[in-house]
C-alpha cells in the first residue's frame, strides 16, 4: 500500500518577475516501509520536492496524497498536526533549540502532541529508549553545542522518531558529517526502516543512496528515471549495491 502518492506536482517560484518552474509534473509514489532516495544534480529540485511532498511548502499544482489525504487541501493547522503526529524530519543542519538540552529537544514534539496519551515521565522514558538505541544516552542532559555533529544528527533522528511517525523525511542527513558519523547515522536510518518506518531522503552520497530500496533521479524539476535496488539487508551487499548504483548514475549523467 502506498503511503505517499504524488501526481502531476508542480512548484513554481516567481523571482524578480521571472517564473522559475522548479518542479514540473512530478509523479511518483512511496510504498509503506520503503526507503527512497532522491538524487540529482545541484539545483535540480530535490529539496523542493521533499518539502513539497511533506507539506512544509505549498505546491503550485498537482496532488500529494499522504495516507490517502490530499495535503494540498489541508489548512496550515491540519498540516502542522500532520507534521507533528505522522511525519518526522531530519535536516542537513541539525537544527535544534539552543536553550534546551538534547533530551528536551527530543521530547519537545511529544510534549506538544496529543497523539500518544502518556505522562511526561513516560515520554522521557521513550526519549531515553530512543537515545539508548542510537547510542547517545550519555549526552541526554548536554547542551547542543557540547556534542559532536554526528551525535547531534542522531539526536535529530530521535526527535523525528519520538511521535512514532509513519514517514521520515530527511534532507541530506549526512551532508554535514564526516564519513564515520555519516555511516553511523545511515546505520540508524536503515535500522528504522527495517522496523517499518518509511523514509524518503535527499542525498548526494551514493553510499547513502545504496542503502535505500529505490532511487529517484531528478533533473530540471522532473523525475528522469528511477532505480530499484531492493531491500538492503546486510553490510556485505553494500559494495555491490554502490557499484551498480554508481554505474546507473553515470548513465544518467551524474
Amino acid at each position, binding site marked *: 500500500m502506498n503511503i505517499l502518492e504524488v501526481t502531476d506536482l508542480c512548484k513554481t517560484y516567481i523571482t524578480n518577475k521571472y517564473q522559475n518552474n522548479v518542479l514540473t509534473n512530478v509523479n511518483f509514489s512511496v510504498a509503506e516501509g520503503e526507503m527512497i532516495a532522491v538524487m540529482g544534480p545541484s539545483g535540480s529540485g530535490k529539496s523542493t520536492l521533499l518539502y513539497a511532498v511533506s507539506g*512544509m511548502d505549498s505546491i503550485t499544482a498537482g496532488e500529494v496524497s499522504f495516507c490517502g489525504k490530499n495535503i494540498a487541501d489541508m489548512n496550515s*493547522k491540519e498540516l*502542522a498536526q500532520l507534521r507533528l503526529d505522522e511525519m518526522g524530519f531530519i*535536516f542537513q543542519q541539525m*537544527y*535544534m533549540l539552543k536553550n534546551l538540552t538534547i533530551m528536551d529537544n527530543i521530547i519537545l514534539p511529544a*510534549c506538544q502532541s496529543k497523539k500518544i496519551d502518556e505522562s511526561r515521565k513516560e*515520554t522521557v522514558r521513550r526519549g531515553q529508549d530512543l537515545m539508548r538505541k542510537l547510542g547517545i544516552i550519555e549526552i541526554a*542532559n548536554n547542551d547542543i553545542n557540547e556534542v559532536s555533529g554526528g551525535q547531534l544528527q542522531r539526536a535529530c533522528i530521535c526527535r*523525528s522518531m519520538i511521535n512514532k511517525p509513519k514517514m521520515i523525511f530527511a534532507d541530506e542527513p549526512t551532508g554535514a558529517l564526516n564519513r564515520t558519523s555519516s555511516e553511523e547515522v545511515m546505520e540508524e536510518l536503515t535500522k528504522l526502516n527495517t522496523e517499518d518506518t518509511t523514509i524518503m531522503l535527499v542525498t548526494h552520497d551514493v553510499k547513502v543512496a545504496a542503502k535505500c530500496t529505490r532511487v529517484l533521479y531528478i533533473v530540471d524539476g522532473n523525475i528522469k528515471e528511477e532505480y530499484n535496488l531492493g531491500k538492503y539487508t546486510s553490510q556485505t551487499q553494500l559494495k555491490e549495491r554502490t557499484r551498480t548504483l554508481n554505474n546507473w548514475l553515470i548513465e544518467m549523467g551524474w
Partner: protein
Amino acid sequence: MYRSILKKDLKRKKTMNMILFIFIILAAMFVASSVNNLASVVTALDSYFDKADIPDQWITVPNETEHEKFTEFADQKGYDCKTLEMITIDPNDILHNGEKLGYDSTICISSLKNSTRVFDKNDREITEVKDGEIYLTALIFYNKKYDLEVGDTITISLNGKTKEFTLKGCTKDACFGSGMIGMTRMLVSENDFDYFSGEDATMMYSEYVYTDDADFMDEFNHAEISSLFNADRSMMNMTYIMDMLIAAVILVVSMCLILISMLILRFTINFTMSEEFREIGVMKAIGIEVRRIRGIYITKYFATSVVGSAIGFALSIPFGKMLLRNVSKNIIIGSTGGIWLNLVCAAATAAVVVLFCYLCTRKIKKFSPIDAIRNGENGERYTRKGVVHLSRSRISPVFFMAVNDILSGLKRFAAMIIIFTLGLLLITIPENTINTMQSDNTIYWFNMTECDHVLSTELLFDQSSSRKKLEDRLVSVKNYLAENDIEADVFQEAMFRMNISHNDKKTTSVAFQGIGDVTADQYMYEEGGAPQNAGEVAITGLIAEQIDVNIGDDVEIKNGESTKTYTVCGLYQSMTNMGEGIRFYQDEDLDYNYVGSAFGMQIRYKDAPDGKTLSERKAMLAEHYPDWTAYTAGEYIRYMVGDVSGQLDSVKLMIIIVVLSINILVMVLMVKSFLTKEKGEIATLKAIGFRTGSLVAWQTIRIAIVLLISAVLASALSTPLSHLIVGPIFRMMGAQSIEFEIRPLKIFLLYPLLIFSVTTLSGMLTALQLRKIKASETSNIE
C-alpha cells in the same frame, strides 16, 4: 569592495538595520529633549524671577500707617525699595459674565505702577493695560472651576462703585501667581485702579526691597512694623514648590527616558552585532585585517547614527515642548540651552552609538575566525544554558520554552525588564504623589485638624475684629445644623502673624488658634504634646530651628502691642508658609484686633455619616449658604494650595501616553528583532509540527513573563521610590514625615494591568509576523 559589502549588508539585513535606525532616532530624541528640559527646569525659577525683577525681600503691610512706618524704616536704613499699592476686593463682589465668579480667597486689584514684571501666556511682558481691560493670574485663569475665556466680562463692585472689564488674558505673575502665597491679584489700568481707590478702600501695600543685606529681616523684625506677609526670594522660590513638584516629575521622566535610551541602544547594538559575527569570522578566515573589518562596521553604525541622530534632533524639539507644556502655564520656562543643547545631545547620542559599536567590535580581535563563525562563542562556558528541564516539568512545551528562554538569557531580557519597570514607575510615583496630595489626611499638614466639611468664605479683617465675632458665626452654623437634627462640632483656625524670639534670635511666623469646638490636643504633633494651658505653645520644627529652641524652652511672642513668655511644649510639622507655625492653647487670650485671616469653618459631624449622607449635607450647606463654598477636607486643601493635583493629573495622563507609546514601540521593535534572530528556531519548530498559534503564544508568553516581572518590581519599588524621590520635596515644604497614600487597586492592579495588556497585545500582534516564516526555510538558515 568595502562599499559593496556595506551596500549588501544594508539591503540584506533590512529589518535589523531599520530597527537599529529607529532606536537611534528614539534615543537621540529622548536624550536631546530630556537634557534640555533638565537644564530648563533646574534653572527655571531663578531665570523667571530674574525676568520678573522679583525683589530680595517682599513685605506686605495692611494699611497706610504701617506703610508709612515701613517707608520711614527703609529711608532710615537706606534700602532701595518700591511700593505696589493694592486694593483688597471682597470675592463676592466679582462677577463673571454677570454671575458670581466663585473665588473665595484673598484677591486684590493693582495696576502695573511699581509692579514687578508680569508676562502673558506666551511669555511676552505685559507693559500696558488699557482702561476697561483686566488680566487674571494663570492660577485663576486656568482653573476649570471658573471657566474663564478671553473676552469674558468681569464686573467689580467696591464701596458703591461698579465697573465692567473685558478679560484680556492671563498673567504669569511671579509674586501673586503661586497658590501657596494665599493671595492673588487682578491687573487693571492705572485709571481704573484710581477709580476704585479712596478712603473706603481696604488698601494693602507690597513693599519690594532690593537689598543684599543679610541682616534685613533682623532689622525689620526690630522695627516693630505689622505685616500681613513677608518673604525673601528663597521663600518665594519655595511657594512655587508645587509647580516645581510637577517640574520634578518631568525631571524624573526625562532622566528615565535617558536611561531607557541608553538601555535600548546597548541592547540593539549588541543584538545586531551578534548577527554580524558569522560574517566577521568569514572575513577573518579569508585574511582581512581586524582593523579593516572593524572599519566596515564602524562606518555602517556611524552612518546610521548620524542620520538617525539628525532625525532624532529634529523630533526632540516638539517632543520636549510637549513635556514642558503642563509645567509652564504658571511660570516661564525658557529653553536654557536652546537648540544648541539639543544638537549637542543628538551628536553625543551618535557618538555613544559609535562608541558602543567600537566596544562591541573589540571582541573581534580576541576571536579566532571559527569562534566568530560560531556566533561569538568559543565553546568555553561555565554555566549551563538550560536552567529548567522540560523532561522534569509538567508544564506545556510552549510555556516551558518561554520560561526557559528567559532563564537562559536573563541578560538579553534584562533591558526589557528595566525599561518596562521604569515605565510603570513613571506612572505610579506621580499617582502616589497625587493621591497623597488629594487625601483628606493632608489637612493635618496645614495647621488644621480632621473634619468632614469646610465652609469657606473670604473674611476681611480689620482693627475691629474680635474673637466673639468669629465665634458668633460658628454658633450660627452650629445652630443651623442643629435645627436640621445634625449634631456637629464647628470650629475655625484664626491666623496671626507674630514675632517670636528666644535669647537674641528672632523671627516672624504665622500663628494659629483653634476657636469653637476644638482643642489643641486634636492636632498632630511630632514631638512633645499639645499646649494644655495658657502660656504653652507648640511650634513647628522650622521655627524651633530658626530660633534655636527645644521642648521646655521659653520663648517671647509678640501679639499686637503685648509680648508674653510661653513655654514650648511640642513640635509639629506644617506645610503652611513653608513649614513655619505657632499653635496656641485654645483658650489663650490673644488680641484679635491683630488677627490676619482665618481658614474656613470646619464641621465635624458627630454621627459618623456615610458617603451619601456627607454629599447630601454638603449640598444642604451649599444651598443654605450661597455666598460660601462647601468643601470636603481634601477639596479645601486642594483649593488652598492651588490646583496642583489637577495639573499633576494632566501630567500623569501625558506620562501614561508617553510610557505606553514607548512600551509599544520598544515591544514592536524588540519582538521584530527576536523574530529575525530566531527565524531558524521558528522554522524548525514549524517543521516539527508546531502550529503558528503555538509559536505566537510562545513569543507572547515570554513577553508576558517579562512584563509580569516588571510589574512586580515596579509595584515593590513604587512606595520606597516615592519616598525617595518625592519625599524630599514634601520635606522642603515643611512636612518632615509623609505617609504616602497608596491606592493598591490602582498601583498594584490597574496600572500594571493597563501596561501589561497594552504592551503584551502589541507584542502579540508583532509576533503574528512569524506566520511569514515557512517551515521549509529551515534549510535556508545561515
